[in-house]
C-alpha cells in the first residue's frame, strides 16, 4: 500500500488535494511559517485526501504549532539571532557506488542559499569512476577519494579535509531542504554544543519495505527542539539524539572528543553504530547535542525487502558492537542491564507478537534479522577492531 509523502504549509492549506491514484495513504508534513511542527497519516479516498485534513493536521501538530505561531506573533525567537555572523560550514557527503542517489543530493545542495559553504564528496572505496565523473560536472563540489572502506573512515577523512569550522554530514541518499544548513548552523552559538542533528523525513514510501523501515527504524526524533547533555540523558542511549544521516559537527570535535571509531558503521563488519558512538562520546565528555527539527532533510529508504532485512540486521549488529566497545573498553558496567532491558521490553514482545500474528505485528523475518544481528555484534566489533 504505497503512501504519498506531502509537505504542506498550514497557512496555505488548499481546500482539496488531489493525489495520484495508486496511493492509498498520504503522510503529510505540516509546517508553520516554514518550520516543521508535526506529521499526520491520512487515507486517500478516490484520489483526494479525506475531508478531515485540516482537523487531523491541527491535532497532529498540537501545542508545537501554537507555540510557533505565538513566537511569530510576538516576533521573538527561542534561539536568538546573534550579532556575530553564523559560522561557515563544509557539507560532506560520504558515498560509495551510488551515483544516481548522489546526483539527486547534489542537485538539492545546489539549491541551498549561498552562505559561503564548501561542498565535498568523499568517495569511499569506489568500484567505478562514475562518482568522480558525476562530481566533475559540478564546479562547486570538491572530490576526495578515500580508499579504505568504512563510513567512519570516510567521515574522519572529511573532518581532516574540511576547511571550515563546521562540518555538516548528509547521506548520499538524502535530499536536504533549502533551509537545512542555516537551521543547523543557528544552533552553534552555545560553545558547549559540539553537534547539531536534524529531522529526517522519508522521501518516498512507495514499497512496503520503505513503509516498514519508517515504522520500525525511523530517523525522525520528533518535532520539538531538544538539547541533550550528560545531565539529562543516559549517555549509553545517545541514539535518541539524532542520526548520522543529518548531523553537523564542530571541527574541534576531533581535539575535544576524538574522531569517529573506524571499526564501526557501514562498510565494516559492524554495519552501523558509528554515529551513535560519536554522540555517546560527545555527551560523556560533557558537551551538548542539539536536535532541531527545523533542519530538515528527506531520506530515500531502501526499496527492496532484502535490503530492509540487511538494514535491520546491520542495526542490531551496530548497537551490540557499540555496547561491546562501551563495556569492554570503556568499563561502562550498566551495559548488560541496558541490553536486557531492550530485549525484555522491546525485542521479545515484538517477536512474540510476530509469532502469534497479532494485528500490526512486525514481520517475523525482520524481527529475527535484528536478533541475529545482535548476536553477531560483539564478535564483529572485535574482529573489525583487530
Amino acid at each position, binding site marked *: 500500500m504505497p503512501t504519498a509523502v506531502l509537505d504542506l504549509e*498550514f*497557512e496555505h*492549506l488548499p*481546500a482539496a488535494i488531489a493525489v495520484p491514484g495508486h496511493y492509498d495513504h498520504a503522510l503529510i508534513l505540516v509546517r*508553520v511559517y516554514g518550520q516543521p511542527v508535526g506529521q499526520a497519516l491520512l*487515507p486517500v*479516498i*478516490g484520489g*483526494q485526501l*479525506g*475531508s*478531515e485534513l*485540516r*482537523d487531523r493536521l*491541527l*491535532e497532529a501538530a498540537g501545542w508545537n504549532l*501554537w507555540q510557533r*505561531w505565538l513566537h511569530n506573533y510576538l516576533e521573538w525567537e527561542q534561539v536568538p539571532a546573534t550579532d556575530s555572523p553564523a559560522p561557515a560550514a563544509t557539507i560532506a557527503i560520504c558515498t560509495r557506488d551510488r551515483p544516481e542517489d548522489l546526483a539527486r543530493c547534489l542537485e538539492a545542495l545546489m539549491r541551498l542559499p549561498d552562505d559561503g559553504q564548501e561542498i565535498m564528496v568523499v568517495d569511499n572505496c569506489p568500484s567505478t569512476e562514475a562518482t568522480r565523473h558525476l562530481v566533475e560536472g559540478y564546479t562547486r563540489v570538491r572530490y576526495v577519494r578515500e580508499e579504505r572502506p568504512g563510513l567512519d573512515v570516510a567521515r574522519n577523512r572529511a573532518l581532516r579535509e574540511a576547511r571550515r569550522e563546521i562540518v555538516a554530514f548528509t547521506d548520499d541518499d538524502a535530499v536536504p531542504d533549502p533551509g537545512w544548513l542555516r537551521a543547523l548552523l543557528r544552533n552553534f552559538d552555545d560553545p558547549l554544543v559540539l553537534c547539531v542533528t536534524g529531522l529526517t523525513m522519508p522521501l518516498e514510501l512507495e514499497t512496503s519495505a520503505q513503509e516498514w523501515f519508517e515504522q520500525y527504524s525511523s530517523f525522525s526524533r520528533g518535532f520539538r527542539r531538544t538539547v541533550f547533555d550528560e545531565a539529562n540523558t543516559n549517555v549509553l542511549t545517545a541514539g535518541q539524539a539524532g542520526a548520522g544521516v543529518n548531523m553537523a559537527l564542530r571541527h574541534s570535535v576531533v581535539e575535544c572528543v576524538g574522531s569517529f571509531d573506524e571499526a564501526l558503521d557501514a562498510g565494516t563488519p559492524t554495519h552501523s553504530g558509528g554515529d551513535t558512538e560519536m554522540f555517546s562520546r560527545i555527551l560523556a565528555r560533557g558537551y551538548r547535542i542539539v536536535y532541531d527539527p527545523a533542519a530538515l532533510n528527506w531520506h530515500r529508504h531502501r526499496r527492496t525487502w532484502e535490503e530492509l532485512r540487511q538494514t535491520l540486521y546491520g542495526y542490531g549488529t551496530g548497537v551490540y558492537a557499540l555496547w561491546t566497545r562501551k563495556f569492554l573498553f570503556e568499563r561502562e558496567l550498566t551495559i548488560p542491564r541496558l541490553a536486557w532491558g531492550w530485549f525484555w521490553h522491546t525485542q521479545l514482545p515484538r517477536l512474540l507478537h510476530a509469532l502469534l500474528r497479532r*494485528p500490526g505485528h512486525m514481520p517475523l523475518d525482520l524481527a529475527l534479522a535484528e536478533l541475529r544481528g545482535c548476536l553477531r555484534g560483539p564478535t564483529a566489533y572485535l574482529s573489525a577492531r583487530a
Partner: protein
Amino acid sequence: MAMKVLELDLSEPSGPVWGLEGYTTLSILVRYRERPVGWAYVSNLQQPFVLPEQLVDAISTQLGSQLVPIVLGEQLVNEAAGQVAAMPVSVVVCTRDRADQLADCLRALLALDYPDYEVVVVDNASRSDDTARLVADLPVRYVREERPGLDWARNRGIAEARHDIVAFTDDDVRPDRHWLSAIARAFAASEVMAVTGFVAPAELETSAQMTFEFGYGGMSHGFRRRVIRRDSLTTRELLWACAFGTGTNMAFRRQVFAHVGPFDVALDVGTPSGGGGDVEMFHRLLARGHTLVYEPAALVWHVHRRDAASLRQLVYNNGRSFGTYLLTCARNRTVSRSALVRFAVCEWIGWWLWRRLWRPGSFPRRLVGVELTGALSSLLAYRAAQARARELAADRDHRLPIMGAHQQTTETSPTRVRPRGLVMPQKH
C-alpha cells in the same frame, strides 16, 4: 438544583442573561460560528441574572485551551468558507402519540435556515388522530405506517422521501437552525454516506435528566469532528457502534440503503427489542466499507425523560437493545463469531456492566443493575422480536419498502437492487 441550559455563540455580541430565578447554575453550550466548542458552567450566585463579563471569564477559563485550535486555526488557514451548494434534503420524523412534543419539533423544523428541504411525518400506529390533526394545517407531508416499530416507520420514511439525503430526527427533539446546513456541508465529500450529529439536552430541570446527562453520558459523542471508516477501526471499536452517533440525529444518502439494506425491522422502539435499530445500521454501514462522519455542528436539542421511572425504563431498554443488536450482528456475520462472543463477554458484560456495578462512578448502582437485567433479557427479546417481525411482514404486503423503486443512480456506487427489504433471516 436545576441548571439552566443556554447556548452562546462567541461571534455574536452577548448581553446579560436574565430569567434565572430558581436556578443555581447555568450550563452554556458555547459555539463559534455554529460549531459547538464545549460546555461552560457558570454559577449565578442566587441572582436572577448573569453579566456578560462573568460569562466571558468562565468561558475563557474553562474552554480556553479548546478554543485556541478552533478559533486561531481558522485565522491561520484563512480559508474562505466555501459556499456549499444546498442539496435538497428530506427530513423524516417518526412519531407515535406524542402530538404536543411533535408540535415543538415541527415548529423548529419549519424555521430551519436552509433553502430546500421537505418534512415527512411518519405516524407509526398511533392510537389517536391528534397527530393527523396537528399536521393537517402545516406544510409537512403526513404518512401513516400501521406496522408498529420505529424501524418500520424509518423504512417507510425512506421510501416516501423525495430527495437524495434523508435526515432523521425524533419527535421530542428541537433541531438547531443550522442543523441541515451542517449536515449538507458534511455530505459535500462524495465518500460520506452517513452523518450523525450532536445531541444536547434542552433542559436540565429534574434529577432524572441530570443523572442521564452527567451520570450516563447523555446522548452526545463529544465535540470533535470525526471521519469514521472501517479500516481505521478495530473489531472492538466497530462493535461499539453506539459511539458513532444516535438515531435522534442522523442523516444518510439514500443510495446506501440499496447497498446495505434498510433498517432492521426486528429492532428499535416499538418492538420487543426496545431499541438498537440505529446502532445496527451504523455498524452494518461501516462494516460494508462506507464512511460515516460525526459532525458536532449538526446540533439538536433533546428533552430527556423527566421522571425516574422513564429513566429506568430507558436504561433497561438500552441494555436489552444492545444485546439484540449484538445478536443481529451475529446473524448478519459482519464480524467473526469468536470476536463477537469475546466482545459480548469481556467488553460489554464485563467491562461496561459488571465493572460499573462495583464502581458506578456518578451513575446510581441501581440503574446499572437495571441495565444488566435488560442485557440478560435480550436473548428472549431477540427471539420475540424476530417472530413479531416475521408476522408483520407476512401479514401486510402493501407498500413494502423495496429499494430501487425511487433509486436515483449516482456515479459513486453502482445501483444494486437486492430484495433485502424483507426481514427474513437470510444466509449471506
